[in-house]
């Protein structure tokens, strides 16, 4: 590879990639390759509204699962084939937000997009001829060059896409129609789709939380900051806490993730909520309704888990057994009582110090990110803070972020924090809108011929913007 690389770099200096014969395939497949789910689908036509475009986006679990009875299930089949989630173990090719294990990732992609049998049901996911398709693949910020290179080589040499663009995931959000989200007047409705001028993207996903200032669709690299707390971390913490206080749930990642999604919220008044869950004040626990019961799913009876208000006498009644007059269904169910666990877990995103981490919370991190940028840009970014990623769906998250950001931001700045319409698929939607602006896509994408001519080293430099 050494000689060809050297040749490629000299060629790249001589020849400009924008030769007139350059052809980027019209059909564009957008793939937001998250650690937990992949958001995938063909780019929608620009005439479609955001809601219609989102309907063509599919979330596929990006994992290989081994169940309790030693079956191995891949990607999209998980939702249909697994009913018993007890003691499932996961293998995720995406580690810390970056595709690390291509052996597993190739298998999942093959099953989801390329194999005829597996993709027969969903036409919008089938990539029949990669040569006539442009792929827009997202990556997490601050990726290591070796991982980027691996991705480029796999995409172009294993599948051979006709066109390919590797984009920083958060930057794609700037392409979305955000005027209505922020309540600005619509400036140009008939013009080309262009990115927002200044946008600060807070992406709180499965692996980590990142802050990315995006200027006209391009990232300001020096200001990107990352907090190593994401959805996985929160689930594991909840698992640990519950295992210590109630049942041993250390092997039940999936179930605890369901519990987390059902019950957790970000507290806007931590002290008061904490008092409401004090174990000695039983009466108050019931009145305030912060403490809840979560009934664990029972795969044998085919029942799903659900949340309900806390019943402090339930335990005593159950002890009495059949004489208490409870139905056998209630007697057989397993209940987790969740009090301060509900809000102390997501609190980590704002106070990582609670478990001894030295990192700053999200609001402080935003200010740290801005501190390395020219001060004139601060106001523009603070007025356009967009939150994407699954953690944005935790109730109370947005209010807390805005109330904490307001006092630490400069007094003459407007602070507007908004959640994307669909925080999970927002990045995908941005990619889909970028695809409808052919000219801009041509600037970031490479073609198959270019790759074959100049090699992966050139492709990496091109995506980094240095060629």
């Amino acid at each position, binding site marked *: 590879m050494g000689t060809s690389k050297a040749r490629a770099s000299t060629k790249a200096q001589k020849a400009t990639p924008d030769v007139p014969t350059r052809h980027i395939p019209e059909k564009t497949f957008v793939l937001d390759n998250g650690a937990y789910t992949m958001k995938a689908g063909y780019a929608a036509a620009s005439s479609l509204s955001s809601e219609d475009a989102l309907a063509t986006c599919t979330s596929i679990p990006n994992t290989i699962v081994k169940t309790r009875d030693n079956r191995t299930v891949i990607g999209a089949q998980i939702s249909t084939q697994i009913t018993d989630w007890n003691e499932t173990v996961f293998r995720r090719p995406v580690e810390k937000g970056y595709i690390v294990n291509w052996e597993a990732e190739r298998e999942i992609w093959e099953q989801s997009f390329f194999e005829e049998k597996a993709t027969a049901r969903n036409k919008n996911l089938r990539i029949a001829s990669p040569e006539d398709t442009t792929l827009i693949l997202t990556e997490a910020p601050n990726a290591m060059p070796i991982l980027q290179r691996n991705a480029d080589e796999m995409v172009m040499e294993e599948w051979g896409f006709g066109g390919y663009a590797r984009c920083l995931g958060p930057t794609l959000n700037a392409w979305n129609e955000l005027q209505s989200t922020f309540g600005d007047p619509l400036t140009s409705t008939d013009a080309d789709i262009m990115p927002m001028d200044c946008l600060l993207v807070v992406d709180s996903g499965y692996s980590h939380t990142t802050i990315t200032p995006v200027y006209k669709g391009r990232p300001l690299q020096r200001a990107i900051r990352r907090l190593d707390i994401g959805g996985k971390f929160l689930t594991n913490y909840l698992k640990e806490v519950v295992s210590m206080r109630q049942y041993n749930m250390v092997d039940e990642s999936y179930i605890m993730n369901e519990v987390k999604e059902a019950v957790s919220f970000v507290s806007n008044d931590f002290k008061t909520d904490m008092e409401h869950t004090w174990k000695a004040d039983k009466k108050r626990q019931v009145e305030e309704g912060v403490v809840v019961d979560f009934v664990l799913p029972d795969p044998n009876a085919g029942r799903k888990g659900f949340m309900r208000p806390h019943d402090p006498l339930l335990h005593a009644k159950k002890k009495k057994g059949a004489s208490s007059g409870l139905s056998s269904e209630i007697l057989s169910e397993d209940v987790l009582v969740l009090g301060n666990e509900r809000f102390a877990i997501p609190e980590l995103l704002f106070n990582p110090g609670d*478990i001894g981490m030295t*990192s700053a919370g999200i609001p402080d991190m935003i200010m740290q990110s801005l501190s390395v940028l020219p001060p004139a840009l601060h106001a523009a970014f603070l007025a356009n803070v967009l939150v994407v990623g699954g953690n944005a769906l935790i109730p109370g998250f947005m209010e807390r972020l805005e109330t904490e950001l307001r006092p630490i931001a400069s007094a003459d700045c407007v602070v507007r924090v908004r959640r994307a319409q669909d925080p999970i698929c927002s990045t995908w939607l941005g990619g889909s809108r970028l695809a409808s602006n052919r000219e801009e896509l041509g600037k970031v994408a490479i073609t198959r011929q270019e790759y074959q001519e100049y090699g992966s080293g050139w492709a990496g430099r091109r995506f980094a913007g240095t060629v």
Partner: protein
Amino acid sequence: MFRVELLADKGSVPQPGWSYVADRAFNPAQAAIAPTLSRKRGIRDAGTGGDMSSRRTNAILRHISELDRENHRDVAVPIPVKQAKEAGARGTRAKTTSNVRRILQSQKTFRNHLDDEEAALSNAAASGATGTTVQSGGGMSAAATAAVARVSKAAAATASRRSSTPVAPLSSAKNKKRGAGASASTPTPSVPGTPGVAASTTEADPEAAEEDSERKQKLLKTEHDDDPLLRSYAPTMPSDKIVQRLLAEPPLSYNASRAGPPISSRLPRHFCCMCGYWGKIRCKNCHLRTCGLDCYRVHEDSRCGAFF
């Protein structure tokens, strides 16, 4: 004399490991011949110092890395073996290249890759010749750094002058110079939708400047116009050149982009290790906290002893 100490390695990997530290100075207190403290007490009191002991920091780091795991146990999930027929169908599409084979066979984890990168970075820094581009703050050119620093310094100066008497002639002269430079080159990027910034972008092109002067003529003149207290000191927008330089910077390394410690130093909060309520009392053996005697008794019976 050598001593083995478990150091908390906050740098590359948030996981504790062993490292050897050469202890050159002869310290009679640590000599085995005449110990001043009993060994046991030395261990027990390890965490009582004002600073967190390395043992405690290690416990926290280990906890954090445990929370970052995918599965609780280390299990290998093998990829299901393909049927021969399907494998044959795949083979018709394209031959795998050597790159693809190498990538597929690599069993490296993220941590391996991170260690490799750290090693490469420190190598580059050590050799010095090429180190400047990678290591120093994301490797931007010195000129760009200077330019950005100048802008932020100027803005900081105006911002700090807000409280004291402003130096009007100096700042206006600077503005004039800046305006001339900007009109010669491309107009500075204006930022719509931000009331704070819109005011500062008037210097962009001559037309705008003309409009501005017209508008000024329409305004009523009062003696308060030159009042230094009524001046607005919005920071000037960075020029297009600076923004382009900022955009062209290479990304930071993985470890460099991690968020730093909090700006506002809040008191650390402590929670009960049993029930999660406020941790009011500290166990005398380990340094975990409990909320009251109920929880303390449970703690003492079951979990105390995992000291750090």
